[in-house]
């Protein structure tokens, strides 16, 4: 049977709690790539990403005493990271007022290809990635969080509930609303393109 936490992490956490903060650097070095990848899903500018990750580590250091060790440290840290990203989205939601009139030429071309023959438009095109980024920026914080976790990262409802701290029924309600919001944005995009 797999132990609940890696011995290395447990030892480091115990040492930090006993007054040796230098050991915390091991955890920062080990888990920062995952925290950065999570933060980059929600913030575009690199300075914002670094601020989010710094806040995650500061919070995790301050709350380290509440880590009980009945789940891996990484899970505990990722919950903290997702909640910090959600706080970031809520704090910056006023900045999401952009329109679809400013589409670049590759984005326009890709949309035309999807409209003409969806099978021919490539899934991994840069234009498609930029478009989905634009659409996600238009969504409310909760909708963006749910679409990212449920549809892009393909996590289960229960996993999302654990990560966000929301109840399972609340995740389902927010997923329903998020899909409706996404559909509305897609309709706006299509209307903008063909009117």
């Amino acid at each position, binding site marked *: 049977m797999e132990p609940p936490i890696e011995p290395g992490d447990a030892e480091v956490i115990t040492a*930090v*709690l006993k007054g040796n*903060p*230098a050991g*915390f*650097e091991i955890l*920062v*070095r080990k888990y*920062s*790539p*995952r925290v*950065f*990848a*999570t933060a*980059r*899903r929600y913030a575009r500018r690199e300075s914002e990403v*670094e601020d989010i*990750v*710094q806040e995650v*580590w*500061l919070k995790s*250091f*301050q*709350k*380290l*005493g*509440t880590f009980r060790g009945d789940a891996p440290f990484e899970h505990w840290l990722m919950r903290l990271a997702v909640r910090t990203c959600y706080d970031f989205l809520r704090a910056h939601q006023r900045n999401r007022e952009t329109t679809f009139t400013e589409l670049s030429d590759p984005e326009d071309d890709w*949309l035309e290809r*999807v*409209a003409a023959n*969806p099978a021919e*438009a490539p*899934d*991994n*095109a840069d234009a*498609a*990635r930029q*478009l*989905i980024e634009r*659409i996600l920026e238009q969504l409310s914080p909760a909708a963006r969080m749910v679409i990212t976790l449920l*549809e*892009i990262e*393909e996590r289960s409802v229960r996993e999302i509930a654990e990560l966000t701290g929301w109840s399972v029924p609340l995740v389902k309600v927010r997923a329903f609303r998020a899909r409706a919001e*996404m*559909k509305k944005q*897609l*309709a706006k*995009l*299509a209307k903008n*393109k*063909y009117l």
Partner: protein
Amino acid sequence: MNLTELHRKLIAAARATPPNDQVPYAFEKRIMACLEGVKPLDPMGLWSRALGFSAIFCVAVMVVMAVGVRWLPTPVPDSLSQDVEQTLFAAVDNNVDQ
């Protein structure tokens, strides 16, 4: 335009490119510099501090009430019983006087 297909293709595009997990150079040093002087919160310490504050508050309320009882003027303790007694026996007293 088929919106369902557009949705599917955009989500597929997002799945196809997981975000970069690169960490800036010496980022851990920056975090450790930020943590200087910060201490991890001890939940038991917070709990015991809260209990200590509530005990001090209880003692303060007790002292205020004790001072109040000792120094504030209090009504004459027997006045109510004497009033009741006088009212009850008023008729009898009048008859005795006559």
